[in-house]
């Protein structure tokens, strides 16, 4: 089997990797690039722990081939903070105790960021439906939704 050479951009960094044709983007990120912030909870697109953006669009990286990343712009949890400044969502997740074990947190943050880019003023129901593909087993979602709504408000006020 010969590997595929992929040239892409991850969090703004020009990035190249070699991967098998049937290897997922998630595996390429984690195993080829050492970016283990995206998690595999199911491998079948049901839990959202592997959420990334591709050309700005929220997707499950477990349901995309690494080879498909050629020429795309990939955004992951590792690119969410700017230097040592946390994204407001990251800050609010900590402040609201919106994580217990934290395994779903990277995926939820990537998904929530995508929500707020598209809907800066979501209703609670919109937030809950947007995030329905991100399973959390610890929190019952209460504090997660509160953190997202609070971050949305802060970001609206700041803009």
């Amino acid at each position: 089997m010969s590997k595929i050479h992929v040239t892409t951009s991850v969090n703004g960094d020009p990035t190249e990797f070699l991967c098998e044709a049937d290897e997922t983007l998630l595996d390429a990120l984690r195993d080829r690039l050492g970016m283990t912030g995206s998690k595999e909870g199911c491998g079948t697109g049901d839990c959202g722990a592997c959420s990334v953006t591709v050309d700005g669009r929220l997707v499950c990286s477990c349901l995309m081939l690494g080879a498909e990343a050629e020429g795309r712009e990939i955004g992951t949890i590792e690119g969410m903070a700017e230097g040592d400044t946390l994204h407001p969502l990251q800050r609010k997740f900590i402040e609201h105790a919106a994580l217990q074990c934290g395994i779903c947190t990277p995926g939820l943050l990537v998904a929530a960021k995508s929500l707020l880019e598209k809907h800066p003023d979501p209703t609670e129901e919109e937030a809950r439906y947007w995030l329905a593909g991100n399973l959390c087993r610890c929190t019952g979602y209460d504090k997660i939704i509160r953190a997202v709504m609070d971050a949305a408000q802060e970001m609206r006020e700041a803009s």
Partner: protein
Amino acid sequence: MALDDKQQYQTREFKVVGTRVKRPDGVDKVTGKARFGADMSAPGMLIARVLRSPHAHARINSIDTSAAEALPGVHAVVTRADFNEITDDDFTADILDNCMAGDKALYDGHAVAAVAANSPAVAKAALKLIKVDYDLLPHVTDVDAAMAKDAPVLHEGRTNESVPDGMSPNVLARYEFGHGDIEAGLAKADRVIERTYKTEATHQGYIEPHACLASMGPDGQADLWCCTQGHYMVRNTCATIMGLEQGQLRVTASEIGGGFGGKTTVFLEPVALALSKKTGRPVKMVMSRSEVLRATGPTASSSIDVRIGMTKDGRITAAFAELRYQGGAYPGSPVEFGSMSAFAPYDLENVKTVGWDVVTNRPKQAAYRAPGAPMAAYAVESAIDELAKGFDLDPLAVRLKNAAREGTKASYGPTFPAIGLEATLRAAKDHPHWTAPLGENQGRGVACGFWFNFGGDTCVTLNITPDGTVTVSEGNPDIGGSRASMSMMAAEELGIPYEQVRTIVADTGSLGQNEVTDGSRVTFAVGLATIEAARAAKREMCKRAAMVWGIEEDAVKWEDGAAHPAGENAGKHPPMTLKDIAAVASNTGGPIAGHHEANPEGAGVSFATHMVDTEVDPDTGAVKILRYTVFQDAGKAVHPDYVEGQFQGGAVQGIGWALNEEYIYGDDGVLQNAGFLDYRIPVASDLPMIDTVILEIPNPGHPYGVRGVGETSIVPPLAAVSNSVSEAAGVRLTQLPMSPPKVLSALHSK
């Protein structure tokens, strides 16, 4: 160790405890830097995969691994033949058999072989080259069917002395608890109801699959990285299985992506060690979600008969329950805890429970949050609700009338000390939720729940650094913010700011034995040890101050983060702060640390009352959760955010159990829903906010009054949701999950 007087609860004003500080691992977890089980790699690492039985029950005649071994890139294959048999320890022998099948595959998903290769693709390809010769055997997956005399038999000779003669060999143990005279009590009742309830098995559903990285050398030393609720348990269990000395196996706990009891045992770790031993290379193993559902966890399924008598004014005169739990293919369903906890919330003159532990061709059950209690509470609380409604009595008033309180002889034997059940019921009655109006097709349900909590072996070391900051090392994986709680208790005790303390989870080489993170024990037991370690450090720091001041040790007291001279003869000295003392530690005898090793007993029991509103779609049977409020006693809430989080998380797991989660087996005994698509855990859009009311009835057995809070919150919701749905639907439901086809069928049967 019994608690000495100094460890008893004392009323006090807290400065740090009870505030909502930021957790120390927060930044790592929101930036993706935190390292979980599957996030570790090692140089030269191999990847391992497991071959699993596709059959529910089969004799393994032979396993031919030669073709797999011959595949380029494959470094080793292991089967049960690569493990020493354990003959003197049934408990560990069962764990080994569950990790790697012996002469029989006992359930769909049972591991039969494992391959280590230089890539995942090669490992996967190698699995297909392993030839297993099976003889299929008849199987049974239902608990009642497994108890039938002619049921397929999993094991001969595992039944213990408590089981009467003549039962199926699948019935392994019998438990009986209670006091009084049931028949005499029932005779005094105005109404007696007799019902049978069934619950399906549910999985803990942690989002992080099991993962580990093992490295073992020919010198008998080994290192293991894994996601677990207890790395000391992993060390001890793996050492026994691998014939290693415990001191030669160092286990480091990764960050853990949820456990809920499901990570209190081992599944992969011995296999990874065996492969590493055979290959001389580090070996990484990560389960898929399907493997997690097929071969780890779940909890027991149950079938429960209840008989309760009540007078028309709501007094329970007698209560009986017979509980049948299947715990998968090995002994140890949590039926004894179901039997002990079923009627624990009530003050009953006549009460009896009988529990049966049964094996079936399903994965070995693992502990799940208050193991055994939710299903028992579901049955009992459903029956009490039905009786109360039959007499047109307020269900909260009925529960208050019968509530266990201080001095009540518990249904499982002991007399309760101060407990918080009444407080939760009164808080529920006074809450606006209780009197909020309901619409058409809506119902409101309440239920109570109980859990024991316990202590266990615990070690904490608290070090004072030269600059006067404090590091706390504990041995319990932090599953929901416990590092924050330990830092808070250390800061409280030392009288310093929270930010001055950092708590870490140390590896097995760094501390003595620690019980698993389970039994809601960590905030209680590790907290207690942290406080004691801080007290030891304070004593040492007072001694150092006394040296500096040239006075007697007992003339120094610790207050507000500093040593002060105390008493008439101490002289006038300005206080020495922790930082001042740390700065001269080298000059006054060397580094300063406090440590505490103990097996604290005396964890306080915990009670909760839950209230939930639901709406039932009369045309489809769909259930919507409209409003949910948890009332629970926390003893003392060290970090209220994380206490609320435990209440909310437990409630939502219970909602899932009540509504849509279930193990679905086909006639072939194969699990049909081994994925998050059809194993339906609640999603964000299924739920409202989960309101919480924290009550604080101090545990006399902890210096700050702490009780475990993690488990009780999953006990009431099954019944609370069922009582609510039954009211909304106008028909009583007696089986979980209340999936829409079941609810619709009940509606049609009205």
